């Protein structure tokens, strides 16, 4: 429940601002000039703010669409990401957002029209070449969709531009807005998973794995393409059994024909983010995992990492054609 809403003066009269404020009539509304006055200020504590995040309604002025880090892709030469929100409803202990931000408040950029304009410009720039756009890098794409109407607003652009693909990365089961409309063939709803016991330990406030699977089944039955993201892979001594059970559960339920892609990446975080996280959550077992420093990132040692990746790849490629499988390990952050 949102109890406090900060509103940039610049977008106070934006129709999307008004609509969102109307959803929270009891929230305290606080005016500000720029969201940076409230968000990510020194001395703020992410862990404390996560207990009661406020909503910040703001305008994104520049860098609305950015190229993805190298190797973050599912088959296209041109890959971009964008974030209509910063921060996430969920509280996954491995998430890089905790290391990147001092603040756990949700920032929602209400100027969707500027995002859509920039997306269209990039689509036009790449003419008829395949170009992929990823949402869900700095937030969960669907978790707040009933409030943000993100999918309703952005999908028409992709219906109009069938050679551009939109990936909505999520752990959410908020798929009602999607199920209300006809499936968009160039939109992939990409769900991320860890085995249930690991999810219960590390993915706080997220829907249970079986609920996410049910959302996939519902979407596929309606004709939507889905993606599977086993990223980050988390090491535990018994990972063979735990991941085997997870893959069995997933591939028993899903329709491989409507599975656009499957990707893998083992746990990795930039060193600075990792150090910040272990200070924030000193008693969390994830940060005492067998980890090493490599190229300014914290990763599993090669013996663990390669074992995990190879084992998972072997099983996944038994269920999914190799051309739909992607390993994203070199990407330096672990998020959704």
């Amino acid at each position, binding site marked *: 429940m949102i109890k*406090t809403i*900060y509103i940039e003066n610049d977008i106070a009269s934006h129709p999307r601002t008004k609509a969102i404020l109307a959803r929270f009539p009891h929230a*305290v509304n*606080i*005016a*500000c000039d720029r969201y940076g*006055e*409230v968000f990510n*200020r*020194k*001395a*703020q*504590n992410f*862990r*404390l*703010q996560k*207990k*009661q995040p*406020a909503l910040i309604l703001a305008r994104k002025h520049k860098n609305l669409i950015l190229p993805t880090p190298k190797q973050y892709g599912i088959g296209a030469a041109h890959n971009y990401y964008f974030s209509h929100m910063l921060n996430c409803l969920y509280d996954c202990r491995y998430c890089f957002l905790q290391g990147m931000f001092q603040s756990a408040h949700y920032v929602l950029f209400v100027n969707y029209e500027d995002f859509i304009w920039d997306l269209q410009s990039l689509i036009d720039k790449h003419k008829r070449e395949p170009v992929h756009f990823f949402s869900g890098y700095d937030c969960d794409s669907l978790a707040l969709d009933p409030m943000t109407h993100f999918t309703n607003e952005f999908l028409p652009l992709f219906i109009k531009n069938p050679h551009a693909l939109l990936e909505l990365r999520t752990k959410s089961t908020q798929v009602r807005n999607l199920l209300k409309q006809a499936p968009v063939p160039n939109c992939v709803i990409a769900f991320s998973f860890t085995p249930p*016991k*690991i999810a*219960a*330990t*590390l993915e706080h406030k997220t829907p249970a794995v079986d609920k996410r699977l049910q959302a996939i089944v519902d979407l596929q039955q309606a004709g939507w393409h889905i993606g599977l993201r086993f990223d980050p892979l*988390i*090491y*535990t*001594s*018994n990972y063979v059994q735990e991941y085997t059970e997870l893959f069995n559960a997933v591939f028993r339920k899903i329709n491989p024909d409507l599975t656009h892609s499957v990707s893998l990446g083992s746990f990795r975080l930039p060193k600075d983010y990792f150090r910040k996280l*272990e*200070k*924030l*959550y*000193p*008693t969390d*077992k*994830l*940060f*005492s*995992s*067998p*980890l*090493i420093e490599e190229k300014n990132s914290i990763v599993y*040692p090669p*013996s*663990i990492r390669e074992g995990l990746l190879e084992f998972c790849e072997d099983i996944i490629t038994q269920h999914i054609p190799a051309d739909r499988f992607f390993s994203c390990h070199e990407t330096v952050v672990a998020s959704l």
Partner: protein
Amino acid sequence: MINIFCALPAEAEAIVQHYQLNELKQFGLYRLYQSRDKKINLTITGIGKLNAAAAVSYHHACLASCAADIWLNIGVAGHADIAIGEARLVHKIVDKQNAACWYPQILFDTSCKSAPLISLNNPSTDYTTDLYDMEAAGFYQMAIRIGTAELIHCLKIISDNRCTPTTTVNADRVKKLIAAHITTIDAIIDALLPLADEVASINSESEHYQAFIKQWHFTQSERIQLLRLLRCWSLRRPDQCIMQSIAALKTGKQVLTALQKITTDTNFVIHD
């Protein structure tokens, strides 16, 4: 620790009495008070932003406050139309002089409403829909350098408004206004204490850390590494006595190497 700041003795009196604070005579620049268990401190800052900022700095230097402390500025304020005697937490502070602003993070449930506040250089009866005071901006901008944002707050009791201007405010009335809100102050402190405890737990060092740095020499960067490895040990080998395992080692570097082995041990279960 809980650190309370009031501009005037009249604002402090009821709080000093309620928490049974005693004046610390050894500190002369500002009047400082402390509870017998040393958990609650109060400083009388004097009027104005500069005094408030300087008093916070002095208080910190005298009493060695830390990131897990609670910081409260409590006093009276004016407002256009809020009734005399009502209390407001402050959710936005603007320094009228330079338009700088801060946003106290109210992360706890409270029955006390919140309002924006403007800190003025001089008293004013040109009331607006913001609270008026003369200290919050000075208090907050200094406290935020020392403490944790979510634990720093301002509570203002309305002493004057359009119908009852500042000319009616006197020391006796101020005392009564604050005294009537002791339960509000108690409730705010009670709501902040779990957050403060959480910050303290985040910042607490391993129980063995002091013993290690007494027994072996570690450079500053090795001490940081040691803290991390001790934390790792306590999570991965909670039942094993760490001192027994490394007592025979001669140097800090040998200790770190031995502890490092734990972090590469692949026998590791992430969940219970």
